[in-house]
């Protein structure tokens, strides 16, 4: 270490706030904005102001499940949707060939514009103070968190604190044999905060993630790659963004597809001993869903190539992100690896990829509101909770921000349920199951995927955003109008009939179906696979008012897939019954003798609130649940006996 480092010993009293947010990444930005917009005086502290909402990894937002989370954040009154709608360079809807539940919007972001836009929004938000500073410690009295202490000696007091430290928490970058303490992208790490959290009794873990090298776009031979342009049809993440604001596809930037080959793989296999992943230097646990290229080549040895996406990092830069080539190989090997790839034979590497290890809080130590069980008034969100991904971070950020804001106002917190939002699935998974690797949302994690659609995120969550004070009157009115239009039209289609006639029967026969003899309900007709809403309205009277494309989309989905939606709703009903079986907060599991030891330990550690939550803990078997239910029931009987 350098000799010029001194430690500030003298502390001073800074201002008091309602809410303090530590870290201004994707979680911290949402948390601070939510708290401030709810009317709380809020302080947002970050190590480097030039890294607010910075994207240290892939320059993109959205995708399956993740894109839905962005819409959920937007519906709750968050910023991510607005921010990406203002700064994207390409927009695509994925999974269009599949059903409505899995359609997924993804945007390529201009990473610098994204950061600048978010910083500007934060700066212009009333009640919100953005300040550069490294938080070293918390102010804790009697198990209650009362504020934070920075490395410059400032003591800020607050009614609630949200920690979103990300990979800065005792971050360590690894590139081949080289290792050094660092936050993301060579920023200053936060070396003290999590160390102190450990002293307060938190159980910490080391996780690992990584990023690929960047190359200069001027040195890519695009002719050897396949172009992936954006969509022509307008899309947006935010409810507030108009179709007319959509960027013409010609103004969007393309991504480029290429592949690794045997040469790349041989090079990797021959140098495995030089990567910290394989020589044992990395202790952190990495994600299975986003493996390094070393991992892919070793684990899937029979594959002779892997996809590589070349993604522009923005309009005002020539840097390209080499997606799928995440690596912790030594720099010289990385450059050679890049050169084995078609289109990149002469590419100049601008930054090497790296692996980064960091501290996370084992999330079983959180309540469903993301308040910690150990310290009252302390909330955590984002990578600190063991997740991965900007969207997962933003979802947790607004959730923790709302709950911290409500705490500061002396109001009870909100809990999003698994059937209400992907954010609810994520929160419940984290606090119930914990995670052994950086957690990524997948649509397959949701039992009720069909209910958690991208198209209905606003319908699901705007009322909650409104309730906590994050939805303006103007937007609320627009939302209610949309909701009513959908309901009215669904109702209308259940009463209007399609009558047999030449036009309709020609249409039907063209699709190889039998012509109509009698009239049929419009809703029933719409369920035929070859009928869309737009074809249907040719055969029935027009709606009283012209309908917007989002209303039509919703009406169509609700009608076409009503059978499946009903099934999912029945599942939710069953779940709610189990959710209604509350477990007393003061339960002593030692007293429930018949529970198996493993289950008892898990229950003691996680302390689920309902039988439903307990049933999702791995290692808790049906017999344990039966015993637990009987025990609780017995307690209730005993109480009524008294």
């Amino acid at each position, binding site marked *: 270490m350098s000799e010029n480092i001194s430690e500030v010993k003298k502390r001073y009293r800074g201002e008091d706030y309602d809410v303090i947010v530590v870290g201004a990444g994707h979680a911290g930005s949402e948390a601070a904005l939510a708290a401030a917009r709810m009317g709380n005086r809020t302080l947002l502290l970050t190590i480097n102001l030039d890294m607010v909402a910075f994207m240290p990894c892939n320059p993109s937002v959205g995708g399956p499940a993740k894109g839905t989370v962005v819409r959920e954040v937007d519906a709750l009154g968050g910023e991510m949707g607005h921010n990406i709608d203002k700064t994207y360079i390409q927009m695509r809807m*994925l999974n269009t060939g*599949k*059903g409505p539940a899995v359609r997924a919007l993804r945007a390529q972001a201009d990473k610098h514009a994204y950061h600048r836009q978010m910083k500007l929004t934060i700066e212009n938000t009333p009640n919100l103070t953005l300040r550069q500073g490294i938080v070293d410690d918390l102010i804790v009295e009697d198990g209650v968190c009362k504020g934070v202490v920075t490395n410059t000696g400032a003591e800020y007091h607050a009614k609630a604190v949200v920690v979103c430290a990300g990979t800065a928490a005792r971050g360590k970058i690894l590139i081949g044999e080289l290792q050094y303490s660092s936050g993301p992208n060579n920023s200053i790490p936060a070396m003290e905060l999590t160390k102190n959290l450990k002293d307060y009794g938190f159980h910490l873990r080391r996780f690992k993630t990584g990023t690929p090298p960047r190359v200069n776009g001027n040195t890519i031979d695009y002719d050897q790659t396949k172009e992936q342009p954006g969509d022509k049809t307008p899309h947006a993440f935010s409810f507030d963004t108009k179709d007319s604001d959509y960027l013409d596809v010609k103004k969007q930037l393309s991504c480029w597809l290429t592949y690794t080959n045997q040469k790349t793989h041989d090079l990797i296999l021959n140098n495995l001993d030089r990567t910290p992943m394989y020589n044992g230097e990395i202790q952190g646990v990495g994600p*299975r869903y986003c493996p390094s290229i070393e991992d892919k080549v070793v684990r899937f040895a029979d594959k002779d190539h892997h996809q590589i996406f070349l993604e522009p990092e923005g309009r005002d830069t020539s840097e390209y992100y080499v997606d799928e080539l995440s690596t912790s190989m030594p720099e010289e090997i990385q450059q050679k690896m890049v050169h084995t790839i078609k289109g990149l034979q002469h590419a100049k590497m601008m930054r090497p990829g790296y692996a980064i290890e960091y501290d996370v809080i084992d999330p079983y130590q959180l309540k469903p509101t993301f308040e910690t069980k150990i310290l009252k008034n302390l909330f955590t969100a984002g990578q600190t909770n063991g997740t991965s991904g900007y969207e997962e971070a933003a979802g947790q950020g607004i959730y923790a921000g709302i709950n911290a804001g409500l705490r500061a106002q002396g109001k009870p917190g909100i809990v999003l349920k698994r059937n209400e939002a992907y954010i609810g699935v994520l929160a419940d998974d984290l606090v119930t199951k914990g995670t052994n690797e950086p957690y990524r949302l997948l649509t397959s994690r949701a039992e009720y995927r069909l209910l958690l659609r991208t198209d209905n995120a606003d319908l699901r969550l705007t009322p909650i955003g409104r309730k906590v004070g994050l939805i303006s009157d103007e937007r609320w009115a627009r939302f209610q109008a949309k909701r009513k239009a959908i309901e009215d039209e669904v109702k209308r289609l259940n009463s209007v009939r399609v009558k047999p006639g030449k036009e309709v029967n020609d249409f039907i026969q063209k699709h190889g179906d039998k012509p109509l003899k009698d009239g049929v309900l419009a809703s029933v007709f719409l369920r035929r*696979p070859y009928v869309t809403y737009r074809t249907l309205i040719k055969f029935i009277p027009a709606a009283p008012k012209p309908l917007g494309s989002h209303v039509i989309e919703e009406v169509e989905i609700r009608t076409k897939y009503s059978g499946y939606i009903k099934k999912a709703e029945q599942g939710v009903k069953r779940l709610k019954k189990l959710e209604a079986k509350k477990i007393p907060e003061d339960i002593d599991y030692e007293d429930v003798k018949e529970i198996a030891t493993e289950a008892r330990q898990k229950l003691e550690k996680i302390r689920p609130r309902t039988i439903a939550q307990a049933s999702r803990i791995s290692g808790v078997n049906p017999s*344990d649940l039966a015993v637990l239910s009987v025990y609780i029931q017995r307690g209730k009987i005993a109480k009524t006996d008294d």
Partner: protein
Amino acid sequence: METTQFDTIAAISTPPGEGGISIVRISGEYAFKVIKKIYRGKNLDKVASDTINYGHIIDPKDHNSEVDEVMVSIMRAPKTYTREDVVEINCHGGLVITNRILQIVLSNGARMAHPGEFTERAFLNGRIDLSQSEAVMDLIEAKTDQSMKAALNQLDGNLSHLIKNLRHQILKVLANVEVNIDYPEYDDAETMTTKMLLSKAREVKASIQQLLKTAKQGKILRNGLATSIVGRPNVGKSSLLNNLLHEDKAIVTNIPGTTRDVLEEYVNVRGVPLKLIDTAGIRDAKNQIEKMGVDRSKKSIKSSDLVLLVLNASEPLTDEDMKLIKLTDHSKRIVILNKTDLPIKVDVDKIKQLVGEKDLITTAAIKSNGTEKLENKIANLFFDQGIESTQNNVMVTNARHVSLLHKASDALDDVMKGIHEGMPVDLVQIDMKRCWKYLGEITGDTYTGELLDQLFSQFCLGK
């Protein structure tokens, strides 16, 4: 507060009857307290777990008089069948003695166990999984070797194994669908089409249907094939009954006071358990005039899976014979034409015409060896559908399993219906997943992230 869920229970755990040794089993927190009160011998506090100890059972309420000379097994929790403290009293097998000992146990701190309660505790205390515990119940209830085998197979996990295999097949398909959804740009996973789902759904459904076919046979193996013997007086019904009840075939005799219907008796015919209905009706008649009338026959025919109709070849067919033939026309029936050694007075051709040659047996003297033909016929009748040829000899014998298999099969029907209606693959797979869940309920497997593990082990995922 005393609960009914986990107090100390006791029961006679050997089958009722005059066996050599009977066992009274006690399980629960107070098992040792109870035995110490009623046992004279070693200090049971000091004996090791899993030991058998000689001594006497005494009755504290009768001046500590000795009741029986016994061997007492001491098994300490948790390594016992129920995971509770367990005591087994091996006593001399007589019904009177065994019952007396049970009474003494019950009046000294234990309560009578419900049927299957030991097993229920083994399950509730996490000793065995759901399908295993059900198998134990079946084993206890099993009435012949064949049904014992079915239960044992299940206990070994044969059914579990088969179901798990089906689930794994579904899981692989599901994982593929999921990867298509969550990684739409990942080009290495085969794009699952509804066509592929359709063929998998058909395949799994065929397996489930085959399992369900065994369910009917399974039920018979569990409950016995309800069989009634009918015929007018003096045609040889009681001879037939006595032959069937030949000592070595009788499995269970009726003891008044047990839960079994006194009017039923079980016999083992080549592995098929016959539950003989209304044997008392035949027995009653033995020393009196046989008075089992048509009305009474009607009743037993109604509740039978199989009717054995006895006719007398040495006498012409009577109206009553004709009535009985008519009554049994719609039942599974075997007609026994008895006493063919005497001058035949019936019109055999007419009988053949009436009842069909296939189901007719002629016998000279059912009394001695005539049952062999009958036994062959019964065995053929039952095993006709190839009971031995089912998958791994797995037989579904449990009502809960049957109902879940039906649900799983219905879910597959929904898969096919959805495909037919042109639904996209991610919706169709909702029903595929339901099928997978129902099958999981049979083995008691719950969702523990299996699907995700499959996803990550099967595919090399990125973006």
